[in-house]
């Protein structure tokens, strides 16, 4: 199974999402690292179907998800609601996923984003194409591209 995209592409996409939406001043960049992937408390994902099948997942700590919602939506950190967090993470997954889709064989379609607590997520029958691990505002963030390895779509809770 040859990989359809490289980690460099994922990095370029992710950095641009950060520069546009989460770190416009350049004062809080996403610092990518080679450290072992750490756990996260919450994840948002989109599924891709069509000529390529898989998922694009963004996972992070609860604190990071709050920062992300605050930065993305322009809501003060202490006023961020659970819905804000879901919607913000979902939109990040959607934008990253949409840009990943542009690299994939055509035609593909994106699902709506879904948000899960990572402890509950299983990703059966997938092969990890690439991932980014890093820290943002001292909190862990990871972005993963997973390809389905069989006809079984193996989605997480929707």
């Amino acid at each position, binding site marked *: 199974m040859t990989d359809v*995209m490289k980690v460099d*592409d994922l990095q*370029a*996409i992710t950095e*641009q999402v950060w*520069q*546009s939406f989460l770190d416009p*001043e*350049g*004062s809080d*960049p996403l*610092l990518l690292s080679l450290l072992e992937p750490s756990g996260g408390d919450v994840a948002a994902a989109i599924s891709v179907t069509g000529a390529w099948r898989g998922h694009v997942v963004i996972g992070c700590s609860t604190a990071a998800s709050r920062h992300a919602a605050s930065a993305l939506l322009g809501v003060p950190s202490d006023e961020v609601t659970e819905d804000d967090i879901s919607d913000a993470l979902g939109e990040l997954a959607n934008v990253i996923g949409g*840009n990943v889709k*542009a*690299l994939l064989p055509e035609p593909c379609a994106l699902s709506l984003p879904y948000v899960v607590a990572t402890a509950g997520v299983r990703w059966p029958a997938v092969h990890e194409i690439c991932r980014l691990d890093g820290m943002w505002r001292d909190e862990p963030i990871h972005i993963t591209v997973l390809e389905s390895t069989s006809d079984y779509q193996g989605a997480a809770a929707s």
Partner: protein
Amino acid sequence: MALNAQEFSWVCDLVRRESAIVLGPGKEYLVESRLLPLARKAGLSSVTEYIADAQRRPVPGTTKTIVEALTTNETSWFRDVEPFTLLTDSVVPALTASRSGGTSMRIWSAACSSGQEPYSVAMVLQNHLPGAWSYQIHATDLSTEMLTRAETGRFSQLEMNRGLPAPMLVRYFDRVGADWQVSPVLRQNITFAQVNLASALPAVPPFDVIFLRNVLIYFDMDTKRSILQRVRKLLRPEGWLFLGSAETTLGLDGDFERVVTRKTSAYRLKSGYSALASA
């Protein structure tokens, strides 16, 4: 968190030594914001630490990185828009009218940075030069890193979003991975070379239009004057000079006459200025 005077002055001296560009007082915020990402990438938590590190262990690569971080501009396509409208509506018609029979138009983009300016000029000329005319754009910059990027002509999604009309995007660019690549038709009439404006300029045939935008601001008065003097010699008598929207030759070079339109201005040589209808 803010830089102290010693740190700021060390950075200014470094930049001036390497590029003749002067960062005056009031530019501390620029240094802070441009060097912070470099500091973080180096695993340091502040610009102060980064500077201390660079001072302790001077490494040529770091010097170059610092200079380039401080001397490159955020740039967009058709920057400030109006100069390109002036180019289309007045400059190109005036130049093609003054020389019958058609020939080649020569343009110099004298601080081409990552390439948006020369490619923007090319897009204008592709669409507005009469059939008998061809064009040649000479794109130069101090930074070899910028020149390589400009010559490659590959731009990120974010860069493509800045001021480029969507119809031009689909016409002149192709998607490559997560980026966009300029098409050969635009690329083929542009040459790229490294030029330090603060030094002697290469001997080349004169230009019809020179873009010297947003680069003079980095130089002190004497250097500005000498650059304009040298640039003037490379401008054809009926040629046009474009500066950045906040810049002027006033007080620097009396040989230029400012031509003002509703929203922008450009400069022509007084000696070559014929009584054309105002732009």
